[in-house]
């Protein structure tokens, strides 16, 4: 199983390198330099070749190594994919809300949701830890460093 997933990962890199190499063919060449040996495409082409060679080597060699290693591996611990996905979803939502609802509101909501996702259920510390950091951070940037973060504005205002 480990060898299979190692190979799959290496093949994902092969696909990435091929995509990168194909995209490199669409790079515009500076007018008048079409016939030069080194253009804007040359470096990406070189990288594609080295990347492909490495990924193919790993697919063949590392896959075989993983098969050999597999027997001696300890049992893997249970992974919490749901919590991982929830944390990413909360982060994406924060990015979406940051400029729409302002820094303080979005950060407070993000921290509270993040702590809930991580399993915190003590409400008083949770609220304190969700409200205090954005306020302190905002005040520090606004008044001490003169850096302005997005603020809340009513729709249509």
């Amino acid at each position, binding site marked *: 199983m480990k060898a299979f997933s*190692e190979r799959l*990962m290496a093949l994902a*890199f092969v696909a*990435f390198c091929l995509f*990168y190499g194909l*995209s*490199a063919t669409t*790079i*515009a*060449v*500076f007018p008048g330099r079409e016939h*030069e*040996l*080194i*253009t*804007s495409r040359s*470096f*990406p082409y070189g*990288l594609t070749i*080295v*990347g492909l060679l*490495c*990924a193919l*080597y*790993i697919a063949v*060699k*590392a896959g075989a190594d993983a098969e050999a290693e597999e027997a001696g591996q300890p049992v893997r*611990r*249970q*992974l*919490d*994919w749901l*919590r*991982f996905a929830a*944390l*990413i979803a909360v*982060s*994406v939502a*924060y*990015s979406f809300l*940051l*400029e729409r609802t302002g820094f303080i509101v979005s*950060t407070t909501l*993000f*921290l509270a*949701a*993040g*702590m809930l*996702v*991580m*399993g*915190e259920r003590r409400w008083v*510390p949770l609220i304190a*830890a969700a409200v205090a*950091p954005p306020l302190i*951070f905002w005040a*520090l*940037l606004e008044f001490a*460093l003169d*850096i302005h973060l997005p603020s809340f504005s009513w729709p249509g205002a």
Partner: protein
Amino acid sequence: MAGLEVATRPTNLLLVSAGCFAGTLIGMLPGLGPVSAIALLIPVTYAFDPAGALILLAGVYYGAVFGGSTSAILLNAPGVAGTVATTFDGFPLARSGAAGKALAVAAYASFSGGTLAAVMLLVAAPALATVSLSFQSPEYFALMVLGLIAVTAFAGEGGFAKSTLMAVVGLMLATVGTDRTDGVMRFTFGRLDLLDGISFLLLAMAAFALSEVLLAALNGETRQTTNKLADMGSLKLSRKEVQDVAPAIGRSSLLGFLIGVLPGAGATIASFMSYAFERNLAAPKAQKEFGKGSLRGLAAPESANNAASSGSFVPLLTLGVPGSATTAVMLGALISYGINPGPSLFVDRPDVFWGVIVSMYVGNVVLLILNLPLIPYFARILALPQTFLVPLIVFFCLVGVYLVSFNVFDLYLMIAFGAVAVVLRRFRYPMAPMIVGFTLGGLLETNLRRSMVLYDDSFSFVWERPITLLIMVLTVLIVLLPVLRKRWRRAVTD
């Protein structure tokens, strides 16, 4: 003597102390490295005479570098490229309950690196400036290759093929954006957000800090998880640890200073190269500790980083050439004070020239006195339960990146990179070579293309230029040394 007199004036001592303190605080904030710290404080410096203003800025510079190391060690969040190598052993040390010792070693190493560099600056500044001018594109290209190979060869986790592949991925990501030579767009897919390329901070935060906390969430680390991080450990080093760390600091300071003198090379290459150098030099048993919490592995990049920061002042003060983004901002400040840095600076304005050099040393002393007592308070951050710490670190990562560009697109990109980094780390693909590849990619390509143009589209610059050839031979040796060492050991045992 003029420098000593200027640097030890009570006002200037106060300025360097205030600079170090403000720099440390700003450097610890995500997204605000030495460049931002200096830029933010330039308006404040107009109230002082030029020497005092520069002394304040030098203090801010050192403070911000040290502040960056603190967040790199405690949170695995390297705010600037120069502190990426600090995370390799600093964060594992903090995780294993030795956060106090890790911060103390970082403080001692930074102090020693900065001090040794200040002495070297005092003795050899004008002579070194001339040597640095003999470095041209082929030498820079060779130096970049050396830096890249040095990290790739010793990345450890996952083997050489995976390290090389990750370095290539880093180089690929560095090609995104507007091509520096021709000005054409590459891999932007029509998005204006990608015209300037991917930001370093975004990639570094995603690869290290964000992926670290996402991994913690994936592994189910919650409040109930036994948290060794709460234990700060002792600040004291044993005699054996001192004996182990001291020579590494000496070597790395020298290496860091010499690399820092070269315009464009700077603290990043210096820290990576000194890390790789120390790892290669270590005995096989000590070598295995690198990446898992080696004090030597932490001391090397920290001292090199600081020494290179001092070294970068050589071209600035003697030639008027800024060697890094930070010194470029300082050059702007110098010009706005009515001072023209260049060969005549230490004749026309000896108070400024020597005052800044001596204040570097004073700054290091102040930094040590200020920060050692604060270490227990810094390390308390880690005592927070994971349920609070994880969302707070994600917040720091996201806001840090947002503060650089004020562009939400960067946040989406960072989250995507962070998720991919988690998968890659689970398959033991090392992140360090990718970051090094990304950091050096632009310069590597530009210098390669310039060298090819200089030598009529041929690679002959590699063997026709002695310094380039020497660096290339060193690069090959770095790759071959572990193999040769293994064969030698086998031959001895047989």
